């Protein structure tokens, strides 16, 4: 699922005080990410492997693989809906 998405053009990431905010400078959409959203976004931007993601998420956020998958799905769908991500 993650592999089929890409960041839309003109999206800027602002990371201040551990608060990540995404701004689409074309549409004007501003999205403030929570801690887990910021973690997923960083992985997306770095094209990081998702192989060890479940283990890492469990350590960092205390969530199971199943919940992680659901959360990521919801998160990515929301970002597509507001034009921050688009299908590849």
């Amino acid at each position, binding site marked *: 699922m993650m592999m089929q998405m890409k960041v839309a*053009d*003109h999206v*800027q990431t*602002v*990371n*201040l*005080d*551990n*608060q*990540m*905010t995404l*701004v689409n*400078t*074309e549409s*004007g959409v*501003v999205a*403030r990410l929570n801690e887990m959203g910021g973690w997923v976004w960083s992985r997306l931007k770095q094209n990081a492997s998702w192989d060890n993601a479940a283990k890492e998420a469990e350590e960092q956020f205390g969530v199971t693989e199943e919940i992680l998958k659901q959360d990521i799905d919801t998160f990515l769908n929301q970002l597509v809906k507001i034009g921050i991500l688009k299908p590849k």
Partner: protein
Amino acid sequence: METGALKAEADIILRINEGYGLPFESFDVRIEKTKQGTCFTRADYRLLISVDYREAQLEVYDELSLKHAMLHLYSLYIVHKEWGLLLHSSCVVEQGKAYVFGGPSGVGKSTVARLSAPRKLLSDEASLLHLSPEGQIVIYDSPFRSEIPRIESVEPCSLEAIYLLNQSDAVAARTVASGQAFEKLLRNVIYWAHDPAETAKVVRMVANLACRGATFDLFFQRNDSFWKVISS
């Protein structure tokens, strides 16, 4: 002086014509891009700025349209140069430092400015912030005034803090974390987004402003007791 010579010397050449359009109707602006530049049209003014930002043509209905159109042009130009921002706010000088009071329309920006008398004012509705490449933020005397006339020119002052206004029964100031400050300040910028690369400049400048860690939520009553909170 001939236009050619003027062009060589001036940062921007502005031509203003009267007799355009209708009285003020709304703040809605239509934006069109042409080969010549970008055109911003409202019922009571039309502003065309060239692609290189060296020439602008302004057509206005009356004095109010002229003021709004000049504010519009000013904000486009200082963002294009990454010189600074216009912020919906008033700005008061206290002991040589600038205190900015921002927030949405009607929250009390002018009221705070009035209640701050006899302190000098740098603005009552649109503060002019210069973000230097060295990281300094200086507030200049704003040429755009609303209810409080500009009676004397005031020297530019370094920014001490930004207070985001909230009317309340209590008087208190709370630090706003920089991530949140970024979002709040972005909403206070006077700017007509028309090009992603230009808007990216606004985003960069607001991020610089927010990361200074000098943004507060100010809860205030309609008297000058908020200055005690600020001073402390």
